[in-house]
């Protein structure tokens, strides 16, 4: 798993989640039980190719699970955060909170 060391805070920033598009996908999946590909595309304003490539990276990191189902004889891709993904997202939030904690206004 790709991580960035933040020397000052002593925390590791998860690079998989840190990428803005993937962070938005993770946040979106965090607040729902599951969502399909079309919903994520429309809700996040991402293209098929962009979402697909980020989906593969998140799936490789085992942060999301991808299921295929058929609706009205058409294939549908359902995405869901795994337990690992949920934990990693919470950890990322805590890490970022720590990173920004000491910074003056």
């Amino acid at each position, binding site marked *: 798993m790709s991580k960035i060391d933040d020397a000052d805070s002593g925390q590791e920033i998860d690079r998989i989640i840190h990428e803005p598009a993937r962070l938005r996908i993770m*946040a*979106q999946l*965090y*607040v*729902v*039980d*599951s*969502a*399909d*590909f*079309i*919903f*994520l*595309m*429309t*809700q996040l304003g991402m*293209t*098929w*190719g962009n979402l*697909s490539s980020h989906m593969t990276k998140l799936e490789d990191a085992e942060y999301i699970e991808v299921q295929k189902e058929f*609706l*009205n004889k*058409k*294939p*549908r891709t*359902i995405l869901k955060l795994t337990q690992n993904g949920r934990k990693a997202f919470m950890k990322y*939030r805590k890490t*970022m*909170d720590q990173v*920004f904690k000491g910074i003056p206004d």
Partner: protein
Amino acid sequence: MNEEIDLVKLEQATFRTANQDGLTEFWMGLMISALAILLVETISVVIIALLIVFQAVYIEKMKARFTYPRIGKVKLRGENEMPPGYGWVLAIFIMLPAIASVMISSRYENDILLLIARWAPLLFGIGLAQPAAYFVERSGLNRYYGIGVASILLGLVLSLLEFTTPVYRMTLYMALVGILFILAGVTSLVRFVRKYPILDLEEVSDEQDR
């Protein structure tokens, strides 16, 4: 930066997107209208039973036809669970006796029963404030309070007006509220269908691959 608030807003935005098809309002309208018919025609209890039993199947079929091909499918957290909170229990304890008092008052004459039956529209309106508050919390849209306030005001007005029997008063109230919900649902559905064209994921993906 407040991550907590952002996630709450994201969840509310997701709820709004998932429910903009108006099917929830439409279904609530059907249920309330069926209850209105029940007050004058007991056979409609069969309609209500069918609506409740096949609710999940009908809504899923409607969503599969109108919603999913346009904005995709999302399963919200806790959407198949009964919403928590004493407000729902309180709402049921207000609404059920209100309807029961109207039905029984047509068979038995009793002063207390008639008093409750007279104010049944107002009580039912107060009960409807709970789902309105629930929708405000889930969607972040204060306009749902409007539905609650309108239900209470309509209930108050009809409770103050003179009718020959409490049954007519309550039937009119529930029919009006039911029709309002159905109209709101149909309007939202028409707007939704016009706003979002049907997406063909295969076509979209082919375009991207080219």
